[in-house]
């Protein structure tokens, strides 16, 4: 079982997302996260699916994705050098006495405080999943009020591109 990041270019059609999500559930493939948004070409959406499985399963996943009529291209990013990023917004308790500490912690992880109230900070943090996990671990668990994460997006390094 290894983790794979699969990028999919799909026609920006109604129902394309449900076809892909449906494929994963119908065939019992894991989805760790799934993100989707249109690309610079409005007729195409790009999806990033983080999944895990044996080599055989991953091979089937890419073949089955390619088989969907709406799918234009599929690339397993994890086969070569790539970059992955995820965005997290996290709301934490930040009363008078721990405001400084919280600020310092955000700085260490290169997070930005994007909203402030009397007793809370909302911090924005990007990085790969492990970095976001590490930040959550580093905080006093009682201080965390709410978290929201986008799921992973990925792109190939250098000249490796996915486009039509």
């Amino acid at each position: 079982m290894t983790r794979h990041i699969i990028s999919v270019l799909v026609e920006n059609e109604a129902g394309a997302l449900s076809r892909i999500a449906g494929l994963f559930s119908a065939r019992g493939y894991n989805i760790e996260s799934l993100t989707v948004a249109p690309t610079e070409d409005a007729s195409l959406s790009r999806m990033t699916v983080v999944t895990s499985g044996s080599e055989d399963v991953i091979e089937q996943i890419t073949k089955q994705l390619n088989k969907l009529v709406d799918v234009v291209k599929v690339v397993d990013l994890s086969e070569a050098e790539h970059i992955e990023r995820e965005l997290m917004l996290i709301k934490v308790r930040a009363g008078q006495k721990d405001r400084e500490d919280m600020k310092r912690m955000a700085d260490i992880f290169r997070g930005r405080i994007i909203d402030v109230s009397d007793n809370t900070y909302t911090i924005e943090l990007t990085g790969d999943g492990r970095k976001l996990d590490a930040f959550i671990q580093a905080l006093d668990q009682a201080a965390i009020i709410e978290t929201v994460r986008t799921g992973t997006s990925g792109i190939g390094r250098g000249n490796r591109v996915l486009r039509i």
Partner: protein
Amino acid sequence: MDRVKGKSLTGAEIVVRCLQEEGVEYVFGYPGGAVLFIYDELFKQDKVRHVLVRHEQGAAHAADGYSRSSNKIGVCLVTSGPGVTNAVTGIATAYMDSIPMVVLTGQVPTHAIGLDAFQECDTVGITRPCVKHNFLVKDVKDLATTIKKAFYLATTGRPGPVLVDIPKDVTAATCEFHYPGTIALRSYNPVKKGHAGQIKKAVQLLTEAERPMVYTGGGVILSNAAPQLTELVRLLGFPCTNTLMGLGAYPGTDRQFLGMPGMHGTYQTNMAMQHCDVLLAIGARFDDRVIGNPAHFAQNPRKIIHIDIDPSSISKRVKVDVPIVGNIPDVLDDLLKLLKNEKPRDIKAWWKQIEEWRAKDCLKYDRKSKIIKPQFVLEKLYEVTKGDAFVTSDVGQHQMWAAQFYKFDKPRRWINSGGLGTMGFGLPAAMGVQMANPGATVACVTGESSIQMCLQELSTCKQYRLPIKIVNLNNKYMGMVRQWQQFFHGNRYSESYMDALPDFVKLAEGYGHRGMLVEKPGDVEPALREAFARTNELVFLDFITDQAENVYPMIPGGKGITEMILSEDL
């Protein structure tokens, strides 16, 4: 073809015009509120003929049978909500066997979608996992192109059913009609030619093989590659098997044909599948009912060449050494070209071994029985129809016996639901077969349980004068269920006895057909002869058969391909 250029047509007119442009002869359907405009347009013309079934499941199976038995495409038309849900079994049946089919469904008006309107259902959502692709047309301007896409997608690549959901207001709205001659989709480009390097590797393996075996499935039938397959197998002199979906691709009466593989396959075929050193798989998918337990199958090393149009069928259950993705006839043409210059090894020893296996005569049964043996009926059916009938079947023991005992020499003659295993398929499929092949002999082999699942279509058969011969193997049990209960559930026949059966003769007569009851072995052949002589009538033959008969050989679920139960073991 004439074009109505520049003229505004309603969506309903466009639907019918598209069908005409596609050369559709028959639409199998059932009307309802959401498709009334379309039915109104069908009424006003006579190019596309509508066949009124009695249940939407029948419409889908009939369209499916029409496709399977011809090189044409079956079309069905149903209304929204229950019309669609009734058709789903038929759509899923076609999907599992990769049968091309276009399904047109009515939908509530666009403004009502999502509001739980009367007879609304999420058709695209419900059918998504059992179609090759589906569309919801929200704008009449997209209608013609979408229908064109549906026909294109259904018939190219790995075929399958494609559904177009059309809201009622779209069928009333108007726009200019233009039917595109061709269509190109950037996201969909099925391959044709196989990879030349891979084909060379295959040639090498085939010429060096000491114990070769050719194993082919439904893909050979669907891609019309039977002539190339036959040429290839004869050229090489190799043994050959066709799966339940592939029967008729290689002549069933030929010596090189070893019989069907798998759960109820022949002893010689299953042994050869396991012990071969090179396996050439063509348009087949190594499914659970064919190779049994994949771990057991892997115990014997062999090189596998796999030709298929669908890359996802390759190395799905069994790892393959030489994958060749491509259109089967194209790949076989290329293979043949190269093989004609090669000399395969002498495989006499292998044939000797195979003949020893064949000598076991694994399909033998008691020919002296005083009760009608189902196998006997099928042998006689083969004789009486001179092996040249179209045979549809339902699902159960009768299906397996038909596959074992009716020797199909031609493709598209054996019509059954192999993938989904849908009881109720046989009769409506036979209607489609008869429509596609007027004048041909069509037999529906069924059981007293299966036939009751789409029995209402007897009425459709009457209306359209379809002279189908129904061969009902009446063992008063859901025989296949009973067999499993006997073998694996301690003879506890839980709910598999068919009580309160109707008098099938009277029932057939009630629908305006002829019925015949056959109770003695000696009457089997005369009854069949009489029935098939009645070329203008549907005849329902009710054969009272041995309740205790089982299908042999049998590989129990989860067991290896050679772990067969044979009749002699018991």
